[in-house]
């Protein structure tokens, strides 16, 4: 068990390092740090441009490998470099992550929980009305891009607010400025969280219910559940302990991919609701030609995905005794 986890950890660390380097190289190749100096009136003197780019370490005239090494040595000292908008990339990411996590945590847990429950319930009652409704419903949701779900929720909330006569559900940004007192501020934040959380939960529940349904069906067709029933388990206990538990295992094999899917969904929804989270940071970095900010975001994402992948490995080992050997 420990050897398995140690091997996974070393492999993940290696992947994180390579992915970070590749992320920096891709950012340097795709983004143009000179773009924001062009077309200025009066023109920016070349010496100024050069010194600004040199200070940020993003001067295209420096060989790419030298830039990568300088960036990596900064990273080793705990710095992701400076952004073109001023300030440390690392500090900016730290602020934005707290914003993103607010949305991600509740929405993801809710979505995965509902998805797994719906998937199991559908598989147990295969081809009955509940299964049919949730299956067709998930097809429609999965065919809808997350931002469309978000905009439609906003449209519904606008109609609801109009009908009530005052803005009960607020959905622009994480909070409204000007609320006094702890209670008012908390309620305001909760009101702002409602729609993004709902949007993320709907999107994730749809895809997780599909996976979970397919995997539960696979398990139900084996003799595991029947064996447990024969040993005297009740139907519910046999399903939960020997059906669902086994059905969760294949899901953790694609953990890295799944984590990526959750992050992507969250990023799109966060952007649609104009939260100042990680998604917006990446988008503005690309628009500004901000190599350091973009590379920092990619590096952070890679580490996050792999760390959560390791957590999934732990869960996998806990669910599946064969892994622990």
């Amino acid at each position: 068990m420990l050897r398995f986890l140690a091997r996974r950890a070393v492999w993940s660390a290696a992947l994180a390092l390579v992915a970070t380097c590749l992320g920096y190289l891709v950012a340097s190749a795709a983004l143009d740090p000179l773009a924001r100096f062009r077309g200025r009136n009066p023109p920016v003197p070349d010496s100024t441009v050069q010194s600004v780019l040199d200070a940020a370490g993003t001067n295209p005239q420096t060989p790419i490998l030298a830039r990568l090494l300088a960036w990596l040595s900064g990273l080793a000292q705990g710095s992701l470099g400076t952004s073109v908008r001023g300030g440390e990339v690392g500090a900016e990411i730290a602020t934005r992550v707290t914003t993103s996590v607010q949305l991600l945590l509740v929405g993801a847990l809710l979505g995965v929980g509902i998805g797994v429950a719906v998937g199991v319930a559908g598989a147990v009652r295969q081809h009955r009305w509940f299964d049919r409704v949730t299956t067709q419903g998930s097809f429609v949701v999965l065919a809808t891009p997350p931002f469309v779900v978000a905009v439609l929720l906003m449209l519904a909330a606008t109609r609801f607010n109009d009908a009530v006569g005052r803005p009960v559900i607020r959905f622009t940004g994480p909070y409204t400025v000007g609320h006094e007192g702890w209670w008012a501020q908390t309620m305001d934040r909760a009101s702002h969280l409602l729609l993004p959380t709902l949007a993320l939960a709907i999107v994730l529940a749809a895809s997780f219910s599909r996976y979970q349904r397919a995997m539960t069906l696979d398990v139900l067709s084996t003799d595991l559940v029947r064996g447990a029933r024969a040993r005297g388990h009740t139907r519910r206990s046999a399903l939960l302990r020997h059906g669902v538990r086994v059905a969760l295992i294949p899901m953790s094999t694609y953990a890295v991919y799944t984590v990526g899917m959750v992050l992507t969904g969250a990023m799109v929804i966060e952007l649609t609701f104009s939260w100042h989270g990680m998604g917006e940071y990446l988008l503005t970095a690309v628009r500004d030609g901000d190599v350091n900010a973009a590379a920092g975001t990619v590096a952070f994402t890679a580490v996050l995905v792999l760390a959560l992948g390791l957590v999934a490995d732990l869960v996998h080992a806990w669910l599946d005794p064969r892994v622990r050997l």
Partner: protein
Amino acid sequence: MTGRVRGRTGADDVDLRRPSARVVRRVVRDPQAWVGGVVLLLVVVWALVGPWLRPWDTTYADVTAFGVPPSPEHWFGTNDIGQDLYQQVLVGLRKSLMIGLVAGPLATLVAAVVGAVAGLVGGWVDRLLLAGVDLMLVIPSLFLLILLSPVLTRGGWPTLAVGIALLSWMVVARVVRAQTRTLRERGFVRAARFSGASTWRVVRRHVWPNLASLLVIDATVAVGAAVLAEATLSYFGLGVQVPDVSLGTLLASGSPSVATRPWLFVFPAAVLVVTVTAVSLLGSALRDGLDPGGPDA
């Protein structure tokens, strides 16, 4: 998937003729397949002939109707500069479908090549390709698409389609690899390899024909995924660029005024959702038909 193709792949597959007929029979009897197939056909036909059903031209701006709701003159309403939204949606649908039809099969092709070669050759080639797949899964593909968008948009929609394809083949490549590894031990593949057939020949003549159904299903599903990826990128202004129009760009321009002029958002959204739902229903019916544990028809 005729008996003749199957028969050529070797003695092991003699029995596969009947199952493949059963697959076809199951798919044909599956209402999902009918709904998905018919709706998709209607969407494609509409995309092709739709412009001639209405008098308006895509470039024509009706100066007597700025931002009017759906009406007998303008079925889907008009936008702020008087363009007929029905025609705009059709132009966007064509572009979105083209991107999907280029990117989906291309992604499956890459997955089929990488997965089959890795599974068949094994050894360090397998480990290297698998490590590459793992590496590309570390950073979610939408992040990479956003990062690469300045480069991808420079070449118009074809480069965008290729970019989407090159960032969405990894999971399927793993599935193909796993399937190929089981095929590798079968008699006809071993015989072909020991009699000196090149890897490429074995992949084309023996691996791909046996994975044909899997690959067809995946290509179908990948079309839908690519259409969604395009819409998301374009919504954030990083995909299809002016003057080109796609469903994504229409959604982007329609969303700010969704509360006051909902038709500008709702019609492109509905067309997008109906199209992708039809594609995934079809993919799902094909998969159910292939599942040996599924209900027999």
